[in-house]
């Protein structure tokens, strides 16, 4: 079988050892790292994302495939120079201040990485300034904010206000998501986009990133 296809299929099975082994084999055979990434790892995660969206598979399968993706990515990373890490965009991601839920955000992070974005995951309970500071420092074009609690929405609005205060709101786009978040809320606080769930986050982020 085609080696890259085999990587993709092992990733879909969540077999991290196999993905690591095959990725190393591809590297040793002199394949272009970017091709291994795009046509092996990312191609596999794309299938996983679609199947998750269709409810054919559940969280455990996604987590196992994500681990397999990392097993391959860890081997590829040293082969890319810092500035040449192939990325279709940079995204700063976090659960807003006051909220300790992060399963949804982690899924979005996995899906975005799987789609070729470079993700700066700030974790949970992230203060508004930290979102903006990180995006500025890393020159990220997108800030993604998640919340599960209904009380933490103002923190998302605060991030957008800081962007405006610093004159960055044209350069850095915002996407918000989480159980209590709606398109109406996104409009109200002035977010650029609303992500209904982790499975469609990639399409939404692609949309506002223009890639």
């Amino acid at each position, binding site marked *: 079988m085609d080696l890259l296809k085999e990587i993709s299929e092992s990733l879909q099975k969540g077999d991290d050892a196999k993905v690591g082994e095959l990725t190393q084999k591809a590297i040793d055979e002199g394949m272009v790292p970017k091709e291994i990434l795009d046509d092996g790892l990312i191609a596999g995660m794309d299938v996983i994302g679609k199947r998750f969206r269709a*409810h054919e598979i559940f*969280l455990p399968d996604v987590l196992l495939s994500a681990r397999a993706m990392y097993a391959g990515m860890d081997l590829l990373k040293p082969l890319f120079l810092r500035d040449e890490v192939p990325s279709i965009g940079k995204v700063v991601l976090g659960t807003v201040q*006051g909220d*300790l839920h992060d*399963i949804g955000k982690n899924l979005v992070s996995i899906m975005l990485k799987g789609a070729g974005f470079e993700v700066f995951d700030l974790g949970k309970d992230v203060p508004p300034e930290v979102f903006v500071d990180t995006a500025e420092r890393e020159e990220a074009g997108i800030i993604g904010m998640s919340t599960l*609690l*209904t*009380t933490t929405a103002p923190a998302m609005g605060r991030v957008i206000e800081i962007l405006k205060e610093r004159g960055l709101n044209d350069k850095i786009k915002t996407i918000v998501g989480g159980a*209590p978040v709606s398109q109406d809320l996104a409009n109200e606080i002035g977010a650029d986009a609303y992500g209904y769930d982790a499975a469609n986050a990639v399409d939404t982020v692609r949309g506002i990133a223009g890639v």
Partner: protein
Amino acid sequence: MKLLLDRLQAGEILVGDGAIGSMLIAHGLEPGQCPDMITLEEPDVIAAIGREYLEAGAELLTTNTFGASPAKLADYGLDDRAEEINRNAVAILREVAAGEAYVSASCGPSGRILEPYGDTSEEELYASFERQMSAVTDADVICVETMSDLREAALAVRAAKAMQPDKPVMATMTFDETPRGFFTIMGTSVTDAIAGLLEAGADVVGSNCGNGLEKMIEIAGEFRAATSSPVLIQSNAGQPVLVKGAVHYQEGPDFFAEHTPDMIAAGASIIGGCCGTTPDHIRAVRKVIQ
């Protein structure tokens, strides 16, 4: 007071209570504050919420211990306070209930993901639940709730039965609708949930939280079709939406009253509420059941 399980087995329909978390927020819980610590910091608030539910007709009062397993409290660096938090939460409601309602000790998910999908071992999680369950000796019943991972739910039920062998244990999971039926986000179906929870030792099984009352009635029907055990259903008041920065749950007390006959017909044995439900919702349900 008669034993809870005797009443359920006799076919009686009981009324649970409603949300604690959204009530705490209404009482001024700040973002970032640990809800379970309110028990120690402001016991009067916890007692007041319990009293409101009792007056509304709730026959079970749920403790403010949803996140009080050491594994979950560790998020706030409060894991060493677990015993104190759980013991006090039960004591407050014991006094409020005064023999008029059962005190139900809540145990929610740890927020961890078990190996091999995550990094938490079953032993670690079991030890955490063991500590929580060992501190709720004065409760009448234990309620493991909002679970999405059947393995985690089963660990909690087993810990409850090991630490409190004489107490009934209820266990509920949270389901989403998919084209293939209802599943938890971890992929547990209703029938798998029933089998796994009963096998772990649960006396009452069911579902809580979720995507609104109408879906919950369908879920109740699926539970009833697959088990003769008592079924506990605590639906949230619909999906929360934010309107002008304020949270709004779309399903009000009238909506709950209207749908209670369907919930009973579907086979629920205990009907309460989850996120967004208030003493008014419980009062409305109780009126219909009487």
